[in-house]
């Protein structure tokens, strides 16, 4: 008989330790960073196309020191928060209705499906006509990007609660209303939080779109301004900062979900 080959870490779906996972993840970052540094140090690429990592880091430090970074960040965080909160406050109840009653689904879901395929950037000119280029415009764009998706995904989350769970709550004495408040919503809550976590990720994209074309402040605008002055390192630092903020929000959500639902499988 042929001897079984030991495939080590490359057996399908083999678990590895947390430590080795972290080391592997960090090494990817290190490798990319190293390649980047070497490309710049070799002098084969012009600084205008690819600024060195050092100059990008310096740019971030400079902007943090003169305070412009915090101002841009403040604007951006305010806008995404407002857009996200409004989408959530309106989208979650509508999604739950659509996921609970076929009639409501018929009223709500098809139109949302339709609108969500309209590209959000195409709405920017319209939003500028309606709302100018004030804060309202940026918040509206984040809202347009998130809201319709939230409704549909929350409706899916609501539908995923098993019929038997709802039936058993009826046989324990809930009414239609208390079935929704005491059983359906708590049962779908972990999935709902996952949906919102994904949504805020997309929110950053829509926010940047809005700030690139219809703004005179915020992180997206700082990227556009840097391009006008050919400050490539500032373009890099702007993108990087948005990435880092996105990562932080994502981690915060993940942590909150873990803390809120210790009972989830």
């Amino acid at each position, binding site marked *: 008989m042929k001897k079984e080959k030991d495939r080590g870490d490359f057996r399908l779906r083999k678990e590895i330790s947390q430590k080795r996972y972290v080391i592997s993840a960090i090494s990817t970052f290190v490798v990319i960073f190293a390649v980047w540094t070497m490309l710049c140090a070799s002098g084969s690429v012009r600084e205008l196309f690819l600024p060195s990592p050092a100059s990008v880091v310096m740019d971030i430090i400079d902007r943090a020191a003169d305070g412009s970074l915090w101002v841009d960040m403040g604007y951006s965080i305010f806008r995404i928060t407002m857009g996200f909160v409004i989408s959530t406050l309106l989208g979650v109840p509508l999604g739950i209705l659509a996921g609970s009653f076929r009639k409501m689904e018929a009223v709500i879901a098809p139109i949302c499906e339709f609108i969500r395929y309209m590209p959000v950037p195409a709405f920017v000119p319209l939003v500028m006509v309606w709302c100018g280029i004030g804060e309202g415009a940026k918040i509206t764009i984040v809202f347009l990007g998130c809201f319709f998706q939230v409704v549909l995904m929350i409706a899916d989350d609501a539908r995923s609660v098993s019929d038997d769970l709802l039936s058993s709550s009826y046989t*324990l*004495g809930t009414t*239609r209303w208390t079935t929704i408040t005491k059983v359906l919503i708590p049962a779908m809550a972990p999935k709902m939080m996952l949906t919102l976590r994904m949504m805020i990720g997309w929110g950053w994209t829509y926010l940047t779109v809005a700030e690139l074309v219809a703004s005179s402040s915020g992180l997206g605008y700082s990227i556009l301004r840097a391009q006008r002055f050919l400050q490539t390192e500032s373009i890099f630092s702007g993108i990087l900062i948005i990435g880092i903020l996105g990562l932080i929000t994502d981690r915060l959500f993940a942590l909150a979900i873990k803390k809120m639902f210790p*009972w*989830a499988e």
Partner: protein
Amino acid sequence: MTDKKPESHAAGSPLEAHVASSKILAEHIDKVYTSGKKSTKAIEDASIDIQDNDFVCVVGPSGCGKSTLLRMLAGLDFPTAGSIIVNDRKVTGPGPDRGMVFQTYTLFPWMTVEDNIKFGLKLKKMPKKEQQEIASRYLDIIKLKKFAKAYPKELSGGMKQRVAIARSLANQPEVLLMDEPFGALDPHTKANMQLLMREIWETEHPTVVFITHDIDEAVFLANKIYVMSARPGRIIKEVNVYLPHKRRLELKDTPEFIRIRKSINDLLYSANQEEA
């Protein structure tokens, strides 16, 4: 969406005196499913009559409509023709007077075992102290006192079903409806659950309607068995099980047990032959 028109209520108006002796009385039940132009008869002319404190099983092959029949008793589904009366009231929707245990796990995963058992009591706004007493008593009965503060995800399949039974019984329903509750359990756990269920019945005497396709299970648990055949679902026989009230697993090896099991088996086999 308001609280004003709850779908779940005990029932409509009390009915005439002639039904007073039956706990559950279903007469000439038909259930037809229509999708487009096609209609399928799931249940045809089924009548059942169950006395207070009785333990009744309904057996039949899959697709015979036995689960549908149970769901109609619970008020989760409605007959196309015929009437269902539970505790002298016409069934018009689900309610806490008819507790139900499902084959799938239906514990509320965000609540501890204890809070699951108290769920119905909280809805009734029962005083906290009383809730605790009842929960403790049922935790004792299902032998899961140690798991009072555990979440369902920490329990095995059999434990989950024990809690589900306790959750229904704690609510003090008029009848306990069970839809193949042990169907997903391994044979050993299943046998222990049957024993526990019979013990509970011997001490608490709830009125139980228990659906299963396992003839062995039905004969062990029931005082009376309704045998159903498929397509359309009809009740072909009512079998009284004259076995001792106190039942232990050894009973399954006695000649009388085997005889009853065989007679039901034969009944289902010949019904199946006719259909084929």
